[in-house]
């Protein structure tokens, strides 16, 4: 199995986990935080394997840092509502 196919499997699993959490009836921070973490993980997999940033670890860390800050901002605004 190639790295790209493994990444696809991970993306399906992470998406299913997001859907499962949303369908579980959780609300507020109990839903928001895990769903946003799963979203960040999906973004990491797309950058690493689909966009091939695994070959440029420094750039991957930079993108991960930027997206983490963005997702943390999403979480802060969600929890403040």
């Amino acid at each position: 199995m190639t790295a790209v196919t493994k990444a696809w499997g991970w993306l399906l699993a992470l998406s299913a986990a997001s859907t499962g959490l949303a369908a579980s009836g959780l609300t507020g921070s109990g839903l928001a935080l895990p769903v946003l973490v799963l979203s960040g993980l999906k973004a990491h997999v797309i950058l690493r394997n689909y966009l091939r940033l695994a070959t440029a670890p420094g750039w991957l860390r930079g993108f991960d840092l930027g997206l983490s800050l963005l997702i943390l901002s999403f979480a802060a605004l969600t929890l403040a509502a």
Partner: protein
Amino acid sequence: MTPEPDALRSLRSSSRGHRDEETKSNEEPSREEKSKTHDEPPPGHLPGELLMWVLILSEIAVFGAGLLAFLAVRLSDPTGFAEAQTHLHRTGAAANTLVLVTSGWLAALASQAAEAGQVRRLRLLLSPAVLLGAVFLALKATEYADLFAQGIGTETHAFYTFSFLLTGFHAAHVLAGMVLLALVGWLATPKAVETGAAFWHMVDLVWVLLFPVVYLL
């Protein structure tokens, strides 16, 4: 004839070796070498087209700012936003996530096929990738039609202003990506296919950030 001094012999041999190297370096690289060069950018360097990375960064910044604005405006009316969100097609949007990540997988495989010089295979992979883009748009159109049938438009509530703007702008990127994938499938060069696939992955990346914020939180 006097015997050739060792130093002169050594110089001639070195010069001949240098000429051989020059000849080698001027030769066309083999298919394998070309493929290796394309497969593996120098360690630490961004793979693919630099301009595509500039576009990817710009799109993340634009959608990120839009989503932050959406969440900031939500602070003024959390109840209204929560009620408005119930009218969206959450199941369809979740299905669309699976559709896009699967389409992205096919595009990534097509990029690998292009690097291996497998034109027929890359076209066979890109065709369903484009079709899945059409499935995404069809599900999105169903949601919009349902909202319009309920009398909901961009002016109904701030939630819909943002959700139509963000998802509509993303859908426009999906449409552009479908055209681009069809075009690079026709060109069928490794560089073109990699660039088209990178655009498609960017569309995928934006959706995984947009989906939870607009549909789930």
